[in-house]
């Protein structure tokens, strides 16, 4: 009889794809700011939009951090329970 191995995944693994998204955001955001500062004309408009972007990003990051810190990230997800539940459901 086939027995499933005990697969336990920590929930903080979700930070890996999230961290990838944050990395992309930072790289593209910084490049964008560099382009505006390097190639735009001397104008209040480009400074204003840059400040607006950074301000908006900070606000979004702050809200995200507030919500993220409310959760317990030490939990683990037992995949075996999930798979056994599904096999029982289909039988």
């Amino acid at each position, binding site marked *: 009889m086939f027995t499933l191995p005990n697969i336990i995944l920590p929930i903080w693994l979700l930070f890996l*794809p999230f961290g990838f*998204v944050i990395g992309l955001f930072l790289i593209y955001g910084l490049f*964008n700011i560099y382009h*505006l500062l390097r190639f735009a*004309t001397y104008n209040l408009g480009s400074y204003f939009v840059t400040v607006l972007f950074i301000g908006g990003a900070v606000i979004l990051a702050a809200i995200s951090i507030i919500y993220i810190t409310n959760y317990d990230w030490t*939990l683990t997800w037992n995949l075996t329970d999930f798979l056994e539940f599904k096999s029982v459901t289909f039988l």
Partner: protein
Amino acid sequence: MMDLQHLPNARAGEKVELFLRRNWTTPLEIIIYTSLLFGVPVLGLWLFNEQISDWLTTPYIGQALVLAISAYALITWLFAFLEFTDYYLDVWIVTNERIINIEQKGLFTRVASELHLTTVEDTTSEVKGMLHTFLDYGNVYVQTAGERTRFIFKNVPHPEKVKETIVRLTEEKKSKITN
């Protein structure tokens, strides 16, 4: 940063006659799309508040949902900024000596070219569509005698006036050389 008073390779007596970007409808579109991309999910969160709250308090689902919403918001904000930069860095500068075409194509491609007014053979303005007609914006095509691809001023305001200005400057330049 580019200083319009000190353009690269400026000639003596060169002055900027026109500094053009795409019409104000372009950043307005960006604002509208961004508002929709933020607003529709917020509306959904408000309409299905109880269900969403249940999910947010459920272990595992809550964590995944918070990270997904956060990533979505940051990416949407970034795309709005990228689109604005693309609009802002596309410029067309017409001086009494040359036309400078600078186009930002994506984040890592930038094309800058210039042509001298003496090589301009044909200038065409085009206004197509109801909105373009009411708001008076459209394309201006500048063609040289050579094989070079013509410059296209995309969605600039008052294209007819832009065309007239280029034609006038071209004739003035050519008559100066002739004399």
